[in-house]
């Protein structure tokens, strides 16, 4: 169990598709996070510089954003350096809240030892078959993302019941359900119950879309 373990270093671990040829990006895809942090920092910098400051309070409204900007630039740079120095490939074990808590600290507090690590050895095998090329299943994530984007775009024109049924169906399909017509029925039932319970019962205004225009 990973609470007592650490992510393997890229060099020591075999590649998921069984081809141990580390390239520069192997274990360094976390640069995406660095990019997000820099983007956020740059947006904040532009926003702070172009702010129309009201009033003459001191310290003013730009004071705290400047601190946050510095923090973001600093932490993004440090993260980039760390990724360059020690690339990591993701471990395949299941660990809720991994990263939230220092394994070192919990290890010491719990006096964990071999017994706890062994407790998970008969747990489901960590990598049943290493046949995929990437750690994340981008096809499923892409389908889900397309589903939610379509839902938001279509919510007001089509109304809650139709768009929510569609979203429900896309998610079940992406997550591997094969009973397509049955799933549409479940989705329709689910979104209608929500419309009734929260729309009629609790007074939320859900968009009715073009059907509302017809009725």
């Amino acid at each position: 169990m990973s609470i007592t373990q650490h992510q393997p270093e890229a060099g020591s671990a075999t590649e998921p598709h069984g081809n141990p040829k580390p390239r520069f990006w192997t274990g360094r895809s976390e640069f995406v996070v660095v990019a997000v942090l820099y983007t956020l920092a740059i947006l904040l910098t532009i926003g702070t510089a172009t702010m129309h400051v009201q009033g003459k309070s001191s310290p003013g409204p730009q004071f705290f954003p400047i601190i946050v900007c510095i923090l973001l630039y600093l932490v993004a740079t440090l993260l980039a350096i760390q990724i360059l120095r020690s690339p990591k490939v993701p471990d395949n074990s299941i660990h809720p809240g991994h990263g939230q808590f220092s394994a070192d600290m919990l290890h010491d507090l719990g006096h964990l030892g071999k017994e706890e690590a062994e407790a998970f050895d008969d747990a489901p095998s960590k990598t049943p078959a290493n046949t995929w090329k990437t750690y994340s299943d981008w096809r499923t994530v892409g389908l889900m993302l397309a589903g939610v984007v379509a839902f938001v775009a279509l919510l007001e024109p089509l109304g809650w019941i139709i768009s929510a049924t569609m979203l429900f169906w896309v998610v079940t399909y992406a997550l591997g359900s094969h009973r397509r017509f049955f799933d549409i029925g479940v989705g329709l039932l689910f979104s209608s119950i929500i419309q009734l319970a929260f729309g009629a019962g609790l007074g939320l205004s859900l968009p009715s879309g073009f059907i509302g225009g017809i009725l």
Partner: protein
Amino acid sequence: MEQLELLMGGFASALTPINLLWVLIGALLGTAVGVLPGLGSAMAVALLLPVTFSLEPTAAFIMFAGIYFGGLFGDSTSGILLNTPGHSSAIASTFEGHRMAKSGQAAKALATCAIGAFIGGLIATTLVVFFAPTLVKMATVFGPAEYFALAVFAFLAISAVVSESVIRGIAALGIGLALALVGIDGPSGTARFTLGMPQLFDGISVIVITVGLLALGEVFHIASRIHRDPIATRIETKGRARLNLADFKKALPAWLRGTAFGAPFGLIPAGGAEVPTFLAYGTEKQLAKRRNDPEFGTTGSIHGLAAPEAAANATAGTAMGALLALGLPTSATAAIMLAAFQQYGMQPGPLLFERSGDLVWALLASLFIGLVILVMINIPFASVWAKLLSIPKHYLYAGITVFSMLGVYAVSSAVLDLWLLIAIGLVGFLMRRYNIPLAPVLIAVILGPMAETELRRALAVSEGDLGILVDSPITVTLYLVLAVALALSAVQHLRHRATRKAA
């Protein structure tokens, strides 16, 4: 004993049939999200906040009280039966809990959990009732510099001391602080980072951020792994969970020790139940070694399960006290509860007991009622709850996706919020993928505005002299404790790195 009178008043307003129904709904929902891996009370409260907005505040908070404890009642079920803990607060109870289940004592293990959660929560909530007024009195001497120190303490404790990687923890903190900056700046009226959009003048709703990170981010994460993670095998339990008198007597000292570890941690912003549960587990392990307990580590010792369970709920109980009396959220769930108060126009802290005393005491009373209901629905029906684990994943997550959209749309009927939700959901997915902790984001979003206001207030009084921040014994103590904790955690990381290198 003024508190007892007030608490009785709270019971009087909480014990109406309709409010009992709300507690029951909250308890059912809470246990359900607790049993289901990856979900939790924080997400459940965030999703329900917008859709319960038409309820009166007392009814809503009574329901949240049920959810708040409920999430910790069910959280060990998946760890015990599947050996895959669904929540980080349940990892410590999985070690011995799953061993007990494997040796045919699953029903006993589930009962130990439910009673442990009940005892821990009961003692901690009682402590809150008696010590809340003391905390309130303490808080009234706090000025801007003290509140800023408290916020800094919470930020660094959660992002740097307890998290796996200091850099990733601080990165999460930075993201949260940045998100909290959007909107009209209170003191000056300046519009900040709104890109000229009036919908953003009120800032990005905490609900959008929480649902995005905890619900949609989790759904994306599950999607990225669903065809790859192995499927765990479940140990079946039959009949009702039960505990005979001998086992009860055996577990009682462990429950009490666990509570003693858990209760103080509710007051410290250390991110919730993980630290005390491991501490409780470690102590039981040492004790078992000393008395040569043959069960510990083989067939599963009831002690090793009882202590962490009680610790988790004791932490949650006293965390509620810190939240109500000081306005300080010490875990992600407490942060969402704080956001819930803000949604209803209330600010937890010393003034809350004066201004909304009725609601506070009704809430405390419903925590007690919630615990009783939870233990009643958990012990006889433990195996029914375990059935939730066999819900097909695709229906579960499809439902959660649709419900997140509903919850966020209900905040202000704005499509912009839904686009923000998707963006934040993707950030939540990235953070899970790269093991970046989520709790610092939530704490920063909730406490960020408070930290900024108090810092500016303090510096305005001192006319820019930074010395005011370390001008009182309280602030100096807070910063010193923080510095010691940071140093200790650095030493710990270095020592472990050295042993790993040597191995």
